[in-house]
């Protein structure tokens, strides 16, 4: 098992190298002059020239690439052009928010999605099945920003059940440490101030649902078709004929195998959530990394864009690794291949 994981880790290196290289050339070859963006609309040519030299933009591309690789190896993404801050520091200030939101969205999507999928499969071609699959179709095709705004309008403004956005009630005096608010506010529970944790949790509900809706629908559909496939198989029939209760047959014997393709989907979706939380973060004023990268791209903040994309791609690749490992735990045959 350990050998398998190590082997997979080594295999990651070329992937990451490819990502790093692609990011560099994609950005370097994209139109627009970062020096111009930084210095404003009416900068003088001399000043533009000087800044280009300072940023190394006047060097040949290959030389720029070499310097870039050297820095990446040391995990040094340089300084953000816009803020002058270390890119790693900027990422650290924002990434936890995105991870926290994506995790909650994923838990919501997985638990509900698997459950709906299983129910649909076992009640195939009943109204329950139809309803949930129409619902899933609806979920997949719903624009996230629209869903998010409608949810705010109904659940926040009209029904006054949830806050409209943010991570915690701003009027509470709160300084985060880890930037995972559920963790940061946890200690207040024991200091007789439950409102901190409650507020953090409260703020997570709507954005998690908004962000989790599409993965939920995809997971539900995958679970259903995979489950139908498994339920047809001989071993299930055998188990059934042994007189074991249907519930047990479904959840104990069938689901375990049916979940294999679902896990892959969950992994992929999770990776996509990390990268694609832009709209949800924007509407719910969630201070994560999505909008930061978007702005970095708009401002042609090279170092920030590079750092941001590399961190996200790395997370994506690592999640895939985790999925593969999980996969091999459930199905040892994979390891042998």
């Amino acid at each position, binding site marked *: 098992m350990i050998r398998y994981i190590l082997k997979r880790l080594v295999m990651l290196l070329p992937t990451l190298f490819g990502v790093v290289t692609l990011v560099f050339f994609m950005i370097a070859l994209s139109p627009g002059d970062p020096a111009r963006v930084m210095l404003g609309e009416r900068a003088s040519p001399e000043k533009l020239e000087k800044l280009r030299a300072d940023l190394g933009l006047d060097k040949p591309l290959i030389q720029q690439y070499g310097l870039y690789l050297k820095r990446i190896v040391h995990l040094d993404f340089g300084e953000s052009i816009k803020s002058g801050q270390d890119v790693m520091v900027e990422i650290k200030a924002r990434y936890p928010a995105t991870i926290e939101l994506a995790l909650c969205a994923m838990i919501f999507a997985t638990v509900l999605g698997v459950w709906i999928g299983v129910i649909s499969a076992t009640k195939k071609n009943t109204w329950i099945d139809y309803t949930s699959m129409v619902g899933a179709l609806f979920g997949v095709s719903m624009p996230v920003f629209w869903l998010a705004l409608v949810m705010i309008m109904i659940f926040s403004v009209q029904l006054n059940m949830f*806050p*409209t956005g943010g991570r915690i009630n701003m009027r509470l005096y709160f300084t985060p440490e880890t930037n995972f608010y559920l963790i940061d506010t946890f200690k207040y529970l024991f200091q007789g101030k439950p409102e901190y944790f409650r507020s953090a*949790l409260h703020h997570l509900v709507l954005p998690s649902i908004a962000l989790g809706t599409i993965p939920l629908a995809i997971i539900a559909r995958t679970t259903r078709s995979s489950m139908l496939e498994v339920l047809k198989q001989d071993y299930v029939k055998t188990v059934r004929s042994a007189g074991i209760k249907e519930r047990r047959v479904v959840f104990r014997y069938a689901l375990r195998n049916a979940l294999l393709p679902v896990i892959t989907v969950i992994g992929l979706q999770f990776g996509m959530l990390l990268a694609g939380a832009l709209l949800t*973060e924007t509407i719910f004023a969630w201070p994560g990394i999505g*909008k930061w990268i978007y702005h970095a791209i708009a401002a042609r903040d090279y170092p920030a864009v590079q750092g941001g994309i590399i961190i996200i791609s790395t997370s994506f690749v690592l999640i895939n690794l985790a999925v593969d490992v999980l996969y091999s735990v459930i199905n040892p045959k994979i390891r042998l291949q």
Partner: protein
Amino acid sequence: MKKLFKISIVLLLVLSVAGLMISCSKKEAAAPAKETVAAAPVEDSKFGGVLVFGRSGDSVGLDPGRETDGESFYGSTPVYDTLVEFVPGETAVRPALAESWSFAADGLSVTFKLRKGVKFHDGTDFNAAAVVYSFERQFKEDHPAYKNGPWKYWGYMGMSDIIDEVVADDDFTVTFKLKVKEAPFIANLAMDFAAIVSPTAGEKYGEDLASNPVGTGPFKFVSWIKDDSIVYERNDDFWGGDVYLDRLILKVIPDATARWLSLKKGEVDVIDFPSPEDLEEMKSTEGIKVIQQAGLNVGYLALNTEKAPYDNKKVRQAMNYAIDRSEIVAGVYGAAGQPAKNPLPPTMWSYNDDIKAYPYDPEMAKKLLAEAGYADGFKTEIWAMPVARPYNPNGKKVAEIMQAQLAKVGIEVEVISYEWGTYLDKLDYGEHQAAMLGWTGDNGDPDNFLWVLLSSQAAEKPAGNIAFWKNDEFTDLIGEAKQEMDVAKRTALYEKAQVVFHEEAPWVPIAHSVVSAPMKDSVQDFVLYPTGRRVFTKVWIKK
């Protein structure tokens, strides 16, 4: 696998039960946790309360010398003061940290008498040394804090071409020695980049002063969570009288609709940049009021006077008659704009309101075109900005409306656009025939519009004057005004210059945008500044 599933189910259950509990209690939104707010002094009912300002983006940094964007200045303005400041809601300046100032007879030096007894938030004294520190760090390359730059606005404003030296005559007197006579100089000192920072804090934090601002302003910096919020508390020792709010929070809510919903629900007290479609609803919502002011900007269509047919004054005037500004404003700016007739915005001092705008008159346009020898019209290009700007939210749409209007007088328009950086580059070198652009003023001085955009000097490539209009009479007038220290005389000169501009018509002035700030009824004495500042010094909340 089963374990994982169980764990997930338990987690979800916990989450949903907790969510349900919270939503049932519904306390949070209704009653913000009061115990965390400092008790208000009782002597004045204006005191007390937390104001949350919902804005669209975060500050890049909080050192006003280093930053260039409005959102950054929003973040530094509460903390810092300048030697002189804008009168609330106007572009005129008044004393602030300097009690008075006087120019030398030759106009080449100006001496400031500083306010005594003012303290920085870190407890150190404000004095002449602090003023010298705040300025020298931006241009003396051997200054220990110079390396903390880049000092971008210093460069934008060409301050190194104006200032020779900043000298402390005694503890409370500072003299600026100038290289040139420059009337707008005082207005420059009211801008954010001229804020006075604590030298002690500057030495302590170095480059990190940008995240630990220390000034003399009405509010002290407390904390900053990136992309989320900046928190300030009242500076009880503020030199400028009472500050009423206990705390001020700048909260980032990027989406305009979400900002509005958040105001509607009462989570924030004032919001920035409402989307124009929501304005009517906001005005009619109970408990909400909207204040508005014409922005200090102008959007225009520059006619390249170096190229035919725009080298002909009659053609330029014909363009002005043929374009219906009110249709453009109605179609693109909505309630957030007003048609322009001058190169200066109406809130600017010396705006010449006696000038009659060119009316929409296609017949007159045709007549002028015939006189100019273009009875059958002509073919032309109109360049449209690819990005939304405060002075023009949608360049392409404006171009299309113009295209339709000009077709009626026989002018066939091709609309052209480039990527923004390329667009500006090409304009600077005059590759266009007619092109849209605009300008937002930042020091409240007419010179900041007229000289940069229309003087003969600014027509040298790369040009700020993208009409490449070189009119000696006009340039002489604004040049004289630049060197004139008497405001009444300057006003007269600028008014005259606008008459020349109107007659010569190097541009079709399109519009000035209108800035709106929706807020709760309870928010009192919040004033919009034409320069776009957000100032909370005298704001209070009616209880």
